[in-house]
């Protein structure tokens, strides 16, 4: 079982694909010309919506990135083209590179933690007895289900300077300087809380799916490995891991994409502060573009961010599509 969007497990598309190919043979031949057009007509509304509501904003973003568009031009509805000036400013400035590096590090740390902890918890789920497993699953599902904005608000309260429960616990554990610590006051502490939040809310997806994947490993494989004299570790590396590898690969990329654009958590926890020190690329584009009303600049940053995302997405889709071909 892999994480793929194209084929949910409830619909065995492979089976029906071959079935459709076999039995669908004579039917299309009998169909008229109108029948040949039918699939395109059925897809028309979806494609039109995609072009209009997704394609157009993307194009608009590109167009805006070549314009000098600040407060004044915005109010006057003026269009001032300024060529690649925005890109020159963004790419030669220090900020963009610093934020990009920060985004990459932030994503790397988060995804590494999510995948490591998620995998371990997934394997733990497979090992637990039924009652404990259901208990832990309930906990995971609750964390997974929490809406992002609500979760962020709750974390603000957990880490509140006054009366926050985390500071109280740290104080009781003997770390008295933390009794009135303001977690939003520094870059690292803000990132710490945001990372904890993202890891907390992302682990369930990885752990539960990984557990589901382990249940599909045929038991005979382990028996065979045991007959060959493999110990626990060896049967893990030779049976479990090869089975889970495609799943882990796809999930890692999905998490990279999600964490890279984690706008809501970063923005609503501390607004990219203090001193704009925790801005990651999407937040940077927003603060520069909408906050500081340099819309053209913001659009240029957005285009560059989208290009990075596009690279990541293309790679992810390649993995998923290749897996599907291998399975078929």
């Amino acid at each position, binding site marked *: *079982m892999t*994480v793929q*969007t*194209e*084929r*949910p497990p*409830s*619909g065995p*598309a492979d089976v029906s694909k071959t*079935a459709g190919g076999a*039995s*669908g043979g004579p039917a299309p031949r009998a169909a008229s010309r109108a029948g040949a057009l*039918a*699939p395109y007509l059925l*897809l028309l509304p*979806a494609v039109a*919506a*995609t072009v209009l*509501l*997704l394609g157009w904003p993307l194009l608009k*973003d590109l167009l*805006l990135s070549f314009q000098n568009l600040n407060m004044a031009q915005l109010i006057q509805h003026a269009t001032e083209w300024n060529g690649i000036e925005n890109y020159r400013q963004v790419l030669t400035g220090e900020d963009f590179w610093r934020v990009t590096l920060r985004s990459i590090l932030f994503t790397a740390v988060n995804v590494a933690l999510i995948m490591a902890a998620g995998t371990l*918890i997934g394997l*733990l789920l497979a090992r*637990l007895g039924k009652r*404990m497993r259901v*208990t*832990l699953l309930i906990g995971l*599902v*609750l*964390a*997974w*289900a929490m*809406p*992002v*904005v*609500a979760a962020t*608000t*709750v*974390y603000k*309260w*957990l880490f509140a300077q*006054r*009366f926050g*429960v985390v500071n*109280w616990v740290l104080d009781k554990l003997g770390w008295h300087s933390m009794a009135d610590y303001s977690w939003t006051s520094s870059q690292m502490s803000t990132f710490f809380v945001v990372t904890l939040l993202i890891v*907390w809310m992302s*682990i369930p997806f990885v752990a539960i*799916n990984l557990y589901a994947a382990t249940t599909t490993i045929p038991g005979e494989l382990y028996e065979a490995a045991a007959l060959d004299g493999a110990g626990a570790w060896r049967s893990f590396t030779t049976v479990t891991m090869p089975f889970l590898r495609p799943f882990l690969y796809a999930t890692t990329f999905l998490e990279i994409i999600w964490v890279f*654009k984690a*706008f809501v958590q970063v923005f609503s926890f501390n607004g990219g502060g203090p001193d704009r020190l925790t801005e990651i690329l*999407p937040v940077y584009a*927003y603060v520069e573009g*909408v906050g500081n009303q340099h*819309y053209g600049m913001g659009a240029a940053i*957005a285009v560059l961010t*989208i290009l990075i*995302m596009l690279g990541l*997405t293309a790679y992810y*889709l390649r993995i998923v599509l290749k897996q599907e071909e291998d399975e078929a």
Partner: protein
Amino acid sequence: MKRSLFGRLWPNVTAVLLFIGFVFPVYWMFATAFKPTGDIISETPVWFPTDVTFDHFKTAVDADHFWTMVANSLIVTVLAVVFSLVVALLGAFALARMRFKGRRGFIIGFMCAQMAPWEVMIIAIYMIVRDASMLNSLVPLTLFYTMMILPFTILTLRGFVAAVPKELEESAMVDGCTRPQAFRLVILPLLAPGLMSTSMFGFITAWNEFPLVLVVNKEAGAQTLPLWLSSFQTVFGDDWGATMAASSLFAVPILILFVFLQRKAVSGLTAGAVKG
């Protein structure tokens, strides 16, 4: 295989600790919401709410524009889900049941669309909406939310349509149904569970959406609940009781839907939809 006491104990102990770690923030949200203010701002945390109060919920519900935003959220979310279901059903049927040139291309296209970085496109969308003089309106929100959940809806429904045995449809057509009739009378009823769960995931996505409404609708009368919640703390200062009550009110519908959907969620249906 026999395991030592330690070998049997540590997985369970770890599981209990993890359970506490994952549940605690959710628990603390509800616990704080029901505690009297005195217990919230106490030097030693009150771990279990002993005298339960509903005052904080009253404060949250009485906050300005709360009911407007509830209505806005519901209108936008429900309409987006319905529109995307209708549009997606047509497309999903074509992708699952028909052979045509470019079919694979369409599927890959929708997969790309599903990964669209909406968070970074908000400046462009703001300009488009402004140029259309539609700021502070629910119409653009509905349209863009429809688009946000459309690719996932198409791809998921395609799986559900494919799972309906083709023979059922064919035998209906042998019995004299036209293809649209066969679709309506045979496939649609069998699709009901699929439509339900797909629409719930769409609902969750639209209900939670934050960046777009943040930029496009500045007037309180046209905002949705995520904005209400995120600005709540600014307005109410450190009234954590009311803030947690607000969070609870916002989260409860989703928590209920999600627990209901757990089975589907576990089977990996969610890729890219719930968090994205």
